[in-house]
């Protein structure tokens, strides 16, 4: 429908809560038709807030965006009709069966009952839930719930599907299965996918392009390979026993070193041909009487890209996430009581 080949166009999108907390800060980016676009960032970076604005669940404080050719502010209902959403939480009605949930979604999209009957069957097949379609959702496992959410998100045959953390809290096996569906969807339906995830290796393998967002701001957009190349070489990590002195100038003297970042007693050194640069650096450090306690050389990965642009390791983000997930489980228990 778009002549320029972009299905999402975001222009200066911002959202503040209670007038001060800026969750999203003048974001601008475009998503191309039929690509898988990944949105990466630490917890609280503004990923979900952005998705909620693009899916018309939140009104932007300022800025605008066009989704499937419609403005999210002035043509919200057209946006809603054109997109599908697989939210982060399990939003199906637990007291209804899987089948009833999908039919219900179809009704909300105004799909005629005769059409939705066949389509529901087709989607249950696609996500492999036909056996348990007649059971209440409260008896479903996490993976089954996620698959049900995917089926609901596809009921209107959307041109653009939003997936917010589609594999959050799933075991490895189910995660693989979900990724398989996602790739299949892109092929079968020619859809564009916009997703957030914190599984970097998966984003690396699945996404055509990735945007990294932190503190509500866009820090980098590009194809995974581009981002990795942009790191400018390998990463050498050095642990030094004497962490009171700053050895950055000393390390910078080595010829292939491009940059140094001191994090506590550890130095992250960017260098071309890391395995050759490392011995030189160690030599230089030792000659000044310092002690190297640890060394590692890594080729660029999405992990490093992430760390480079957000200053956080994946492990930090993972820990925060575990907290959040725990809270959600508690909430769910409180309800079922």
């Amino acid at each position, binding site marked *: 429908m778009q002549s320029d080949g972009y299905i999402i166009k975001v222009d200066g999108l911002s959202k503040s809560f209670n007038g001060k907390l800026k969750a999203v800060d003048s974001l601008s980016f475009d998503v191309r038709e039929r690509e898988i676009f990944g949105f990466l960032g630490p917890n609280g970076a503004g990923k979900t807030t952005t998705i*909620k604005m693009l*899916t*018309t*669940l*939140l*009104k932007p404080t300022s800025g605008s965006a066009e989704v499937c050719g419609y403005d999210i502010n002035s043509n919200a*209902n*057209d946006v*809603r*009709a*054109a*997109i599908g*959403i697989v*939210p982060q*939480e*399990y*939003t*199906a*009605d637990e*007291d*209804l069966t899987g089948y*009833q949930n999908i039919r*219900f*979604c179809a*009704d*909300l*999209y*105004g*799909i*005629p009952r005769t*059409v939705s009957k066949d389509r529901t069957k087709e989607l249950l097949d696609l996500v492999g839930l036909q056996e348990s379609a007649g059971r209440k959702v409260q008896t479903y496992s996490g993976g089954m719930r996620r698959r049900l959410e995917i089926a*609901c998100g596809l009921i*209107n*045959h959307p041109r653009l599907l939003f997936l917010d953390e589609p594999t959050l809290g799933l075991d490895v096996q189910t995660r693989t299965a979900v990724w398989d569906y996602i790739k299949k969807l892109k092929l079968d339906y020619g859809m564009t996918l916009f997703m957030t995830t914190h599984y970097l290796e998966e984003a690396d393998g699945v996404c055509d392009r990735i945007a990294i967002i932190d503190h509500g701001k866009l820090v980098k957009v590009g194809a995974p390979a581009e981002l990795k190349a942009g790191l400018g070489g390998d990463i050498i990590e050095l642990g030094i026993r004497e962490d009171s002195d700053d050895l950055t100038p000393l390390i910078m003297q080595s010829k292939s070193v491009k940059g140094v970042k001191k994090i506590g007693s550890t130095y992250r050194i960017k260098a071309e041909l890391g395995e050759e640069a490392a011995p030189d650096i160690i030599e230089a450090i030792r000659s000044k009487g310092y002690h190297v306690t640890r060394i590692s050389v890594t080729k660029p990965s999405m992990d490093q890209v992430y760390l480079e642009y957000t200053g956080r390791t994946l492990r930090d983000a993972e820990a925060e996430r575990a907290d959040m997930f725990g809270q959600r489980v508690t*909430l769910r228990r409180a*309800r079922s009581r």
Partner: protein
Amino acid sequence: MEKTDTSVIHGLWALTNRELIKWYRTPVLLFMTLIQPVIWLGLFGQAMNFSKFFGSSGLPSAEVGALLKGVFGVSDYFSYMAVGMLTFVILFTAMFSGMSIVWDRRFGFLDKVLSTPVSRGAIVMGKVFSSVVRSLIQASIVLVLAVLLGMDTGSITAAGVAGTFLALFLLTIGLSTFFLMLALRSNDWQTQQAIMNLLNLPLLFGSNALFPLTAMPPWLQDFVRINPISYTTDIGRQLLLGAPGFAPLGFDFLFLIGFSVLFSTVGIVMSWKLLTK
């Protein structure tokens, strides 16, 4: 783009039906909402036996009957309060419809609904209509129980019952939208529960559901006269018991129609504006 039926009715029906499926699949909910009015009928209504109170003081029973008729409009208190209980069950069900939207928001279900093109007004009205169906069924059960427990059936006619249920229908629409409006933006069920507890008894005692307004202090009478519960009860007493009302039937109905139309209009407008944060 495929052809879709985006008429309000399609979505409204789906949303109403979803609530009703949840309700009849969980009989314990029906049971819980009926406990309160049944306790009032069975314990309070049966024990508050004015004819016995006065009869035991040596007054002739004819005079006791006349006395009660003068105060309540009927010669036994049980029939009087049984009609009040019909409105009480409506109040209770309506309060829970506000609660249900808080749960929907809390568990992301509301976000799912809001992300579809379904009419925002239908989201609120679906809850209102399911609350109407629920409360009318519950009111019928309470009415049958009241008759079994000894409510005076001397003046009951089919038209009277129909008129009473029309009044109950209007009351549910107005009260449900009122409680839903209070909950539109809330995701805190504890606050919602507190609001319910806060409003529950004032609305009940600030009406003529249990006592006639003639004996009330003037400031309370003023409140009773603006409380839509009073007009519903007034219609029930006139049509089911043949008792004189505090307002003419026509005025009662006009008041209720105004109340339900006003609140549902405001409710729909507010849901356009307030459901999306």
